[in-house]
C-alpha cells in the first residue's frame, strides 16, 4: 500500500515564498498531516506547520489542500489518486508567519470585541435551570473548534482585506447568535451584529458551512436566524413604528 506521492508545499517567511516540490512516502491510512510530518522528519526539518491534537478536535492544522480549506489531520490520503499532485498552502486570508503557519490574531481581536455572556444579576451559580431544547441551538455553535477556516474562506474578507475592520466573520457572528439564543443572556446583540460586526456583509453564499469540519450549519442555523432577528429589530416596519411610539426597551422576546 506504500507509494510515493508528489507534494507541492508553500515555503517561505512573511508571505514571500514559493511552492516547493517534494516526493514523499505514503502508507495506508495516513492523512495529509502525517505526510507533512514525514517531510519534517526526513527532508525539511524546519518546515513549519501548526498542529496539536491530530484528531480533528483542536482546530490547529487548518491549511488549504488543493485550494480547499481543510484540516490536515482529517484529510485522508486515500481521497487522492496516487499520481495526483497535492498542493498544500497556508490559509489565504491571514498573513503568513512561515510556510503553512499563519498569523490568526485577527480572530482573537474579533473575539475580544464581542460582549461576553451577560446573565441576569440575580441568578447565582447552581441556580441555572435550562431545558435541553432551549440550549440545543447554542450547543451546536459551541461545537466550534475555532479552526478559523470559515473566516478564511469567507469572500467578504478573503477577497477584500479592507473589510476586516467592519466584519467579524462567520465564526464570531455565530458567537453572537449563540449568545443571543442563550436562555439566560440579557444583553442586546441585534444592533451590534448589524452595525458593529457586519452581519449585513454576509451574502449567505454558505462557504463557511461548506468548510466547517464540525459540520455546524453556520449559515442556516446561526447567520440567517440572526439576520431574521435583526429584521425584527430594524427592518420590520410594524416593530419600528411600535418602538417609535412606545419607546419600547430593547428586551428580548420569548
Amino acid at each position: 500500500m506504500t507509494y510515493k506521492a508528489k507534494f507541492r508545499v508553500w515555503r517561505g517567511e512573511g508571505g514571500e515564498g514559493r511552492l516547493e516540490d517534494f516526493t514523499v512516502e505514503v502508507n495506508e491510512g495516513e492523512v495529509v498531516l502525517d505526510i507533512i510530518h514525514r517531510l519534517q522528519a526526513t527532508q525539511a526539518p524546519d518546515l513549519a506547520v501548526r498542529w496539536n491534537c491530530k484528531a480533528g478536535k483542536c482546530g490547529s492544522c487548518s491549511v488549504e489542500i488543493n485550494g480547499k480549506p481543510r484540516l490536515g489531520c482529517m484529510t485522508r490520503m486515500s481521497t487522492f489518486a496516487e499520481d495526483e499532485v497535492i498542493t498544500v498552502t497556508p490559509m489565504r486570508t491571514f498573513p503568513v508567519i512561515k510556510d503553512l503557519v499563519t498569523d490568526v490574531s485577527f480572530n482573537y481581536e474579533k473575539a475580544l470585541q464581542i460582549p461576553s455572556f451577560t446573565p441576569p444579576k440575580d441568578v447565582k451559580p447552581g441556580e441555572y435551570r435550562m431545558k435541553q431544547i432551549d440550549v440545543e441551538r447554542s450547543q451546536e455553535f459551541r461545537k466550534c473548534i475555532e479552526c478559523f477556516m470559515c473566516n478564511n474562506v469567507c469572500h467578504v474578507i478573503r477577497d477584500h482585506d479592507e473589510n476586516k475592520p467592519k466584519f467579524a466573520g462567520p465564526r464570531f457572528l455565530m458567537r453572537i447568535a449563540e449568545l443571543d439564543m442563550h436562555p439566560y443572556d440579557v444583553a442586546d446583540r441585534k444592533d451590534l451584529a448589524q452595525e458593529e460586526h457586519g452581519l449585513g456583509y454576509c451574502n449567505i453564499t454558505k462557504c463557511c458551512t461548506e468548510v466547517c469540519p464540525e459540520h455546524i450549519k453556520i449559515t442556516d442555523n446561526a447567520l440567517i436566524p440572526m439576520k431574521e432577528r435583526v429584521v425584527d429589530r430594524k427592518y420590520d416596519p410594524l416593530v419600528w413604528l411600535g418602538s417609535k411610539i412606545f419607546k419600547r426597551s430593547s428586551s428580548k422576546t420569548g
Partner: protein
Amino acid sequence: MSQTTTDSPVRRQRAQLKVRTLRTDRWWLAPALTFVALASFIVYGFWAIFDSSYFVEPYVAPFSSPCLATSCPEGARFLGFAPFGDWFTLPPGILILGLPAGFRLTCYYYRKSYYRSFWLSPPACAVSEPHKKYSGETRFPLIIQNIHRYFFYGAIVIGAVLSYDAVIAFRNHEGEWGHMGLGTLILVVNAVLIVLYTLSCHSCRHITAGRLNHFSRHPLRYKAWTWVSKLNAKHQQLAWVSMFSVMIADLYVRLVAKGVITDLQFF
C-alpha cells in the same frame, strides 16, 4: 491576544500566490449549471407573462394566477373577482407577478445561488471574485433583501391560490365536479411543492419560533418550528423542484389552451 509584541523581521502579508484559486476540481460546474437553469426560468417567465393563452377550463396557468382583471375569462377569475377593471389592458399576470418573483428573489437560498452564479461573488468557495469592492447587503439596493419576510406573507397567499386552482381543477370542461385529468395531477403536485417551498422558508422558521429563546415555554410553536426546520433543511431542493414544477405546470396549461396537446382525462 497577541502572538508577538515585536514586529517580525519580515513584512506581514498573505501568501503571495498569484493565482485565483488552487482548486483542481471542476468548481465552475455548479455555478454554470445554476446560471443556465435560472436564466432559462427567467426567459420562460418573460414569455409566459406576455402569453395570453393562460386559461383552459378548468385549468389556470400558475404564472397568471390569480387572474384579477376584467380581461380575464369568467372562469379564470379568482373566486369570480375582478378588482381591476377594463382600464387594465396589460397581461393580467403582471398584476401578481411581483409576489412570487419577489419571494424567490429575496429567498435566502436563491440569493446564494445567484450571488454565486450571476454575480460571481464568489463563484465557488475559495475562488476569488472579480469585484474590487464589496459591501454585501449593507446598503441600497441589496439591503432590501431584508424584506423577505413580507414576500413570505404574500407567498402564503399565492400558495393558497394555487391550492385553490388545484382544487377547482377537479372539474371537467362543463364545470362538473369529480373529474380529473393529467392537468389536475400536475397542478396538485405543483401546489404541494409550492406550499412546501413556501413553508420551508427561513423567515417562516423564524416566525414560528426561531425568534424565541425559550422553546420550552411555547410547546406548540416549538413543535411547528421543529417541523419547519426539517423542511428548511430541504429548502434548496424544494426551491429547485418547485421552480421546475411551476414551469412545467404553467407550460402544460398553456399548451393545452393553445390546442398543441390535449389534456389526458383520467375520469
